[in-house]
C-alpha cells in the first residue's frame, strides 16, 4: 500500500509556495489530492508555467503565440525554428543531456508539421584546463553527434566558448530549423470536443520524472540520478517519419510533442488552447515499467513521444503508421466541452480540476534592482596596452574561444540532407538550399555572456546585431529570431534587472531590424557555486538568401585581392 502524504507538505516538497497552495485550495474549493498536487507543481513550475517571465516576454515583437514553434516565410515555404536549453540535464549527464536536448527541440519543430532540416548548437563551458569542464564539453559534443547524426538532421552551425562563469553550470542551447509549405503546418490547438488523443512513440518509463521542476531548481549537487532521461535516436528518426505521415492525414487535427511534464502538459495545453477540457484514461498509456503510479505516468519525461488529436474513425490509419515505424500507439483520452481536466484509471476518477487553473500558472513579480557592478564597470577606463601586439594576436588566435572549431563540427554530420551549401567553418553563418529553387536559408546562433553581463541592455542588443551581421556577411537578409534566455535565479533582484534589460535590448534591436521574435525559451536558476552565471541570452536568427549563386564565404579568394575595412 502507498502511504498517503499530506498534500500541503507534499506541495512544499515539490516546490509550490504557500501562496500558490492556498490559491489552488481556494479555487478548487477543497484540498487537492496527492495526484493533483503533483500536477500543479509540474504545470506551475518555472519550466512549464513561465511564472517569472511571461509578462516580460510578451513585450517582445512576437509574431506567433501558443504554438510549439514560430516561423517566417520564404515564398510559400514556412521556415519553422526554435531554440531550447538543456543546461541542467547536461551538467548531470553530458552525453544524454545534450542528446535529449536535440531530441526535444526537433520534436518541437516536428510538431508543427515541418520536416527538421538543420540543427545549431550554442555551447558554453568552464575553462578547458579544468578536467570537469573538459569532460562536460566532450560529453556534450559526442551527445549531439550521437543523436543528431543518427536522426539524419545536419548540425550546420553553432558557437563554442569557455569562461569561468559556466564552470559548474554549462549552457547547452540547441536550435532546430524545419521547413513545410505554409498550408501544411499543424496546430497544437484542439478546436473541437469529443476528438481523440492518440499517443504515438516510445513507451512511458520513470525517466525524467521531476525533470520539469528539477530544471527550475538550482543544481544542488545532490544525487539527481532519477532525473536522467536516455535518448533513443532510432525511435526519434522513426517518430519524425511517422509524424510527418500522420500529420498529412485528413483526420488529424492537432499535434504536440510530450516535452517538459510530458503527457500532462501536452494534453492539458492542447485542450486549453482550444478552450476545451479533456478526459484521460491512464490505463491505456503504454508503459515500460511495472506499477507506475498515475502521477508518474502524467509527469514522465520519457523521450520520443508525440500526442495527436484525431477525428474518431482515424485510429486504424494512425496505428498502421505507428506500427510501420516500430512505435507504440494508443488512444489515451478525448477532448471535452467541459473545461476540466479529468483523469481516470480503470474507470476510477483520480483527478478533476478546472483546466484553466492548471494551465495558467500565477505570475510572480520580483522587484528589480540595478546592481553596483554595473556602475563600477561603466566607470572603468580602457586599460593601456603594453604587451606587443604581435604577441597579443598570437595569444588570441590560440585561445579556445577563437581558435578553429573543427574538432567540434567535424563530429557532426553537417551534410546529411544535401542542403548545406555553406558548411561550418566557411563563414559565420551557414546556408541551406531550398531545393527546387535557387533560394537559400541562412542560419546563425550567437551569444556573448561577458557583454550581456557588463551591460544587459546594450549587450543583448548587440547580439541581435551580431547575428544579423553574420547573416548579411553570407549575403542573406535577416527574417526573424528565436531567443534563449539563460539567467540565474529570477527571485534575485539583480537577475531580475538583467532579465528585464536584456528583454528590452532584444526587443528594441528586433524592432530596429524588423525581425520578429518567432519564439524562444527561458532557462532560469543557472547558478555557479556562489552566484548567478553571466546573464546569457542566446539568439538564433534565420535569413533569406535570394540567390544561392550570390553567397559569400570568408576565405580570401586570390593572392592579389585588396582588403578593405568598412565601418568604424
Amino acid at each position, binding site marked *: 500500500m502507498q502511504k498517503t502524504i499530506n498534500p500541503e507538505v507534499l506541495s512544499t516538497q515539490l516546490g509550490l509556495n504557500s501562496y500558490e497552495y492556498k490559491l489552488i485550495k481556494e479555487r478548487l474549493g477543497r484540498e487537492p489530492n496527492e495526484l493533483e498536487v503533483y500536477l500543479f507543481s509540474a504545470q506551475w513550475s518555472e519550466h512549464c508555467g513561465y511564472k517569472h517571465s511571461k509578462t516580460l516576454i510578451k513585450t517582445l515583437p512576437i509574431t506567433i503565440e501558443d504554438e510549439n514553434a514560430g516561423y517566417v516565410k520564404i515564398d510559400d515555404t514556412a521556415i519553422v525554428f526554435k531554440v531550447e536549453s538543456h543546461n541542467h540535464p547536461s551538467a548531470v549527464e553530458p552525453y544524454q543531456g545534450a542528446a535529449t536536448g536535440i531530441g526535444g527541440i526537433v520534436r518541437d519543430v516536428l510538431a508543427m508539421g515541418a520536416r527538421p532540416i538543420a540543427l545549431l548548437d550554442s555551447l558554453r563551458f568552464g575553462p578547458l584546463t579544468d578536467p570537469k569542464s573538459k569532460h562536460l564539453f566532450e560529453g556534450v559534443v559526442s551527445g549531439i553527434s550521437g543523436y543528431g*547524426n543518427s536522426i539524419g538532421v545536419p548540425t550546420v552551425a553553432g558557437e563554442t566558448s569557455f569562461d569561468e562563469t559556466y564552470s559548474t553550470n554549462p549552457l547547452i542551447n540547441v536550435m532546430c530549423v524545419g521547413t513545410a509549405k505554409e498550408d501544411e503546418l499543424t496546430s497544437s490547438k484542439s478546436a473541437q470536443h469529443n476528438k481523440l488523443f492518440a499517443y504515438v512513440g516510445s513507451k512511458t518509463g520513470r525517466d525524467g520524472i521531476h525533470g520539469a521542476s528539477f530544471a527550475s531548481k538550482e543544481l544542488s549537487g545532490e544525487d539527481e540520478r532519477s532525473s536522467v532521461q536516455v535518448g533513443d535516436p*532510432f*525511435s526519434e528518426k522513426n517518430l519524425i517519419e511517422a509524424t510527418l505521415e500522420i500529420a498529412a492525414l485528413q483526420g488529424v487535427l492537432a499535434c504536440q510533442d510530450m516535452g517538459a511534464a510530458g503527457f500532462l502538459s501536452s494534453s492539458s495545453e492542447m485542450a486549453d488552447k482550444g478552450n476545451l477540457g479533456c478526459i484521460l484514461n491512464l490505463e491505456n498509456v503504454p508503459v515500460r515499467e511495472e506499477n507506475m503510479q498515475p502521477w508518474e505516468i502524467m509527469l514522465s519525461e520519457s523521450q520520443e513521444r508525440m500526442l495527436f488529436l484525431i477525428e474518431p474513425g482515424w485510429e486504424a490509419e494512425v496505428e498502421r503508421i505507428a506500427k510501420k515505424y516500430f512505435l507504440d500507439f494508443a488512444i489515451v483520452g478525448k477532448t471535452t466541452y467541459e473545461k476540466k481536466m479529468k483523469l481516470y484509471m480503470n474507470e476510477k476518477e483520480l483527478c478533476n480540476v478546472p483546466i484553466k487553473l492548471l494551465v495558467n500558472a500565477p505570475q510572480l513579480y520580483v522587484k528589480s534592482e540595478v546592481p553596483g557592478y554595473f556602475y563600477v564597470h561603466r566607470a572603468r577606463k580602457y586599460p593601456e596596452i603594453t604587451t606587443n601586439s604581435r604577441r597579443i594576436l598570437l595569444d588570441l588566435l590560440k585561445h579556445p574561444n577563437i581558435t578553429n572549431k573543427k574538432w567540434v563540427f567535424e563530429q557532426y*554530420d553537417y551534410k546529411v540532407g544535401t542542403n548545406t551549401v555553406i558548411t561550418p567553418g566557411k563563414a559565420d553563418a551557414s546556408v541551406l538550399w531550398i531545393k527546387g529553387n535557387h533560394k537559400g536559408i541562412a542560419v546563425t546562433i550567437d551569444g556573448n555572456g561577458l557583454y550581456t553581463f557588463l551591460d544587459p541592455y546594450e549587450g543583448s542588443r548587440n547580439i541581435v546585431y551580431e547575428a544579423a551581421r553574420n547573416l548579411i556577411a553570407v549575403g542573406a537578409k535577416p527574417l526573424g529570431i528565436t531567443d534563449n534566455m539563460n539567467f540565474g535565479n529570477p527571485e534575485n533582484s539583480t537577475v531580475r534587472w538583467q532579465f528585464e534589460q536584456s528583454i528590452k535590448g532584444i526587443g528594441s534591436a528586433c524592432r530596429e531590424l524588423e525581425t520578429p521574435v518567432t519564439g524562444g525559451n527561458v532557462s532560469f536558476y543557472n547558478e555557479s557555486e556562489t552566484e548567478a552565471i553571466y546573464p546569457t541570452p542566446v539568439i538564433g536568427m534565420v535569413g533569406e538568401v535570394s540567390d544561392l549563386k550570390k553567397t559569400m564565404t570568408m576565405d580570401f579568394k586570390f593572392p592579389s585581392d585588396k582588403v578593405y575595412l568598412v565601418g568604424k
Partner: protein
Amino acid sequence: MIKAGIIVFPGSNCDRDAEFALNSCGFETEYIWHDYDNILKYDFIFIPGGFSYGDYLRAGALAKFSPVMKHVEKFAIEKKGLIMGVCNGFQILTETGMLPGALSKNTSLKFICKDVDVNVESFETPFTKYIEKKKLRLPIAHSEGNFKIEKKDIELIKDKVAFKYVENPNGSYEDIAGIFNKNLNILGMMPHPERNSVKTLGNGDGAYIFLSIRRYLEDAKNN
C-alpha cells in the same frame, strides 16, 4: 529510362539524398520499404546511408534481416543489374556477406564528417568505366568506416578495390574506401557520392560514379 530502387530501412537517412542525386543524374527512382517481399524489378539497387535500426548492436547488423535483403541477394546472384551500398549501405552489404570484410570503429573513436580525396583504383568495372578522373573529392560521414578483412579473405579483394583514400581518415586496411564483389556487380563504399552530385553542393565529383553506372546500364540495355 534506367530504373533505380532505393531501399529504405527504418533509420536510413540518406534515402532522400540518394533520390535527389540519382534523379539529377538521369535515373528514374522508386523507394523500396525494407518490408518489401517480392522480386526486385529494377536496373539498379541503391542501399543508402544512415543508421538502420539505430546502428544498434553493430552498424548494419539488424538491417540484414529485413525481408527485402533476400531479394537483393537474389538480384545479385541472378545478375539482374547493379547494386551499390554507400556508408550504412556498405556496412549492410558486408554484414550480409555479399561483400567481404567488415567495417569497425574509426581509430579516432569519433564520428568524422569532412571532404576527402579518393583515387579510383580500377576503371574496368561497370561502376567506374566512364569516370573521367583519377581522383575524386567526396564527403565522408561515419564513425564505423574502418575497413577490416580476415587474412583468409584477402584474396577476395585482390583487384576488387574500387577506391582508396589519399589520406586514410579512419584506419582502414590498405586505405580502402570502397570495394567490389567478385562478379563486379556490387559496389560498397564509405564516401558519399550522392552528397556531391551537383555543383551547388561541391565540385560535383559524385556524379561521375552515377553517370558511369547509368551509361553502363544503358549500353547493356541497348545491346
